[in-house]
């Protein structure tokens, strides 16, 4: 197993600073997801690790060896591209064997490894086909096959599931995760889909505009987002970010007088509460129900308190009519406070107010 270490890596193009001073570690055998919105530098970071782009500054270590100056073939990695990058004129078997043929692995071993790989991925019946005769999901498996037959310690994947339909994506997610654990490879996986990141990763590295916004386990990312950006990026529907104001007895929701959120100054602060943490109660923060969206297992309620909109996720069907008044409450642990100006997390505000320890 090989750990990956990315140290103060930057990549600048004439027109763009795609990656700016990124550092993170991936332990051997870990599943690390690079997550972020489009254009935040995920693919660039992955390509820098693969050696397909050269760094402007910084170092990349794989298995303790500085590979910054090495070509991709010397880095002992495999990669799955978003477009799969299958060779259209070669059969499935030839595609999977491409790397072994380049490296002149003995024919007997090639056969053995091909059989094993095909079995693992359920491709045994398709080996003679050309990529154009396969479905999207099957092509995806061939691309996976080409990566795992190399038996490298490190595997890099750039949005490998984004061309698949929802059901298939769900299945493949589990399969890739199981495969990674079975083979014990270190995985760096790029996606812009937070569900994928949360369900697969040991660690999520959230990127924003070429910088690391937060580097944490999925549960921590969900429970303690480091910024408003991280808070809004994880969870569906995303966390409510509510502007606060100074009230008579403490911080209140902007545009209201009653219902103290915590005892302390509220101006310039934002309250974050996840929709699933808000409950409808007998007495709490007063709000007006504006709309209900019924989704089956739960309902999404759009409420208005003062000038702020709150999304509430309630279980089952809610028997309230839009336009009526509701009372909302949330547990004190569910509160996240951010500074409005910088977007940074401000736990100290809650500590000072005596809400958190």
């Amino acid at each position, binding site marked *: 197993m090989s750990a990956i270490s990315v140290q103060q890596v930057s990549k600048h193009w004439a027109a763009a600073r795609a990656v700016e001073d990124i550092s993170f570690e991936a332990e051997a055998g870990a599943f690390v997801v690079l997550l972020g919105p489009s254009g935040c530098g995920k693919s660039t970071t992955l390509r820098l690790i693969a050696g*397909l782009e050269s760094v402007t500054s910084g170092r990349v270590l794989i298995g303790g060896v500085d590979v910054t100056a090495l070509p*991709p073939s010397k880095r002992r990695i495999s990669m799955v*591209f978003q477009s799969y*990058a299958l*060779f259209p*004129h070669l059969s499935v078997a030839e595609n999977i064997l491409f790397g072994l043929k*380049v490296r002149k692995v003995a024919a007997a071993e090639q056969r053995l490894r091909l059989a094993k790989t095909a079995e693992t991925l359920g491709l045994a019946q398709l080996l003679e086909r050309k990529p*154009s005769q396969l479905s999207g999901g099957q092509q995806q498996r061939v691309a996976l096959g080409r990566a795992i037959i190399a038996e490298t310690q490190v595997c890099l994947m750039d949005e490998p599931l984004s061309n698949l339909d929802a059901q298939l994506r769900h299945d493949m997610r589990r399969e890739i995760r199981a495969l990674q654990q079975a083979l014990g490879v270190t995985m760096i996986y790029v996606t812009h889909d937070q569900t994928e990141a949360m369900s697969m990763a040991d660690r999520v590295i959230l990127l924003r505009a070429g910088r690391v916004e937060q580097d944490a386990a999925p549960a921590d990312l969900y429970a303690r987002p480091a910024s408003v950006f991280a808070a809004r990026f994880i969870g569906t529907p995303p966390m409510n970010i509510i502007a606060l104001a100074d009230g008579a007895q403490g911080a209140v929701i902007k545009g209201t007088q009653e219902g103290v959120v915590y005892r302390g100054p509220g101006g310039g602060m934002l309250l974050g509460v996840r929709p699933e943490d808000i409950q409808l109660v007998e007495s709490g923060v007063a709000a007006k129900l504006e709309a209900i969206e019924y989704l089956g297992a739960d309902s999404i309620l759009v409420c208005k308190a003062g000038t702020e909109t709150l999304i509430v996720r309630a279980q089952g069907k809610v028997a309230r009519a839009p336009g009526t008044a509701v009372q909302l409450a949330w547990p004190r642990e569910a509160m996240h406070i951010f500074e409005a100006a910088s977007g940074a997390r401000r736990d100290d505000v809650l500590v000072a107010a005596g809400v958190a320890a």
Partner: protein
Amino acid sequence: MNKYSVHIHGWLLLLPAAALLALFTHFPAVATLYHSFFSNPRKGREAAWVGLENYRVMIDDPVFWQSFANNLWFALGTIPLSIALALLMAVWVNGRIAGKAFLRIAFFTPTVLPMIAVANIWLFFYTPQYGLLEQLTSLAGLPSHNWLGSRDTALACLVVVTIWKEAGFFMIFYLAALQGMSPNLAEAAAIEGAGRWYFFRRVTFPLLMPTTLFVLVNAVINSFRLVDHIVVMTRGGPDNVTSLLLYYIYDVGFKFWDLAYASALTMVLLALLGLLAIGQFVFLDKRTHYQ
């Protein structure tokens, strides 16, 4: 609209194009075939049916056979080299190099220049005594040589001009095909450790087969169609060593005014080209991967 009027509409829409094609392509071809079975009309003597007489004459015509042989050598000399050169230039220009746009234009220029102007430039290169080539060889201390006037070198001189002209044209097709290939393929291969030559042999070249087939058919047809360079540079001489089939037809038809024999020669050339094209498609299509 009922069924008939749909058909009538369709045919009416096709009519202008079909009429032009028939008038200027199909009718002349059939007329040529027809004339090739008659004797040449002269003053006071009508064309008379002679059956295959013109074709029999052809079998005994040494100049025809020489032109035919010349043409084969010419094709053999130009086609592989111009295609290989085109491919090489395309791969080079497609890569990450400085001055890419300039190189592309430079390679394509020969195709844009008018044929007669090109031939005149090369005529100067090959001129005895003060031509560019002569100046270079004399600098190297080599004896003077009349490149276009010598039986040994005249055809080779034409081959060089043609390669120079065709390679840039074919490069455009290769370049277009290369641009359509995903750069991820090369990256995937690079990760597996494939070198540039291995990647070219195993991936780029096979994926370019449809283009190669297209270019090859064009190259073959062009090599049997060349006439303008010969008119400007050698007029088939010396001793017919640069007389190619189409030039010979031109000579027979418009210098000797033997239109009947020229018609017969034309039919043979047409049949030859048709067979070559069909042969190439049938033979190579099986080995070609289309996207």
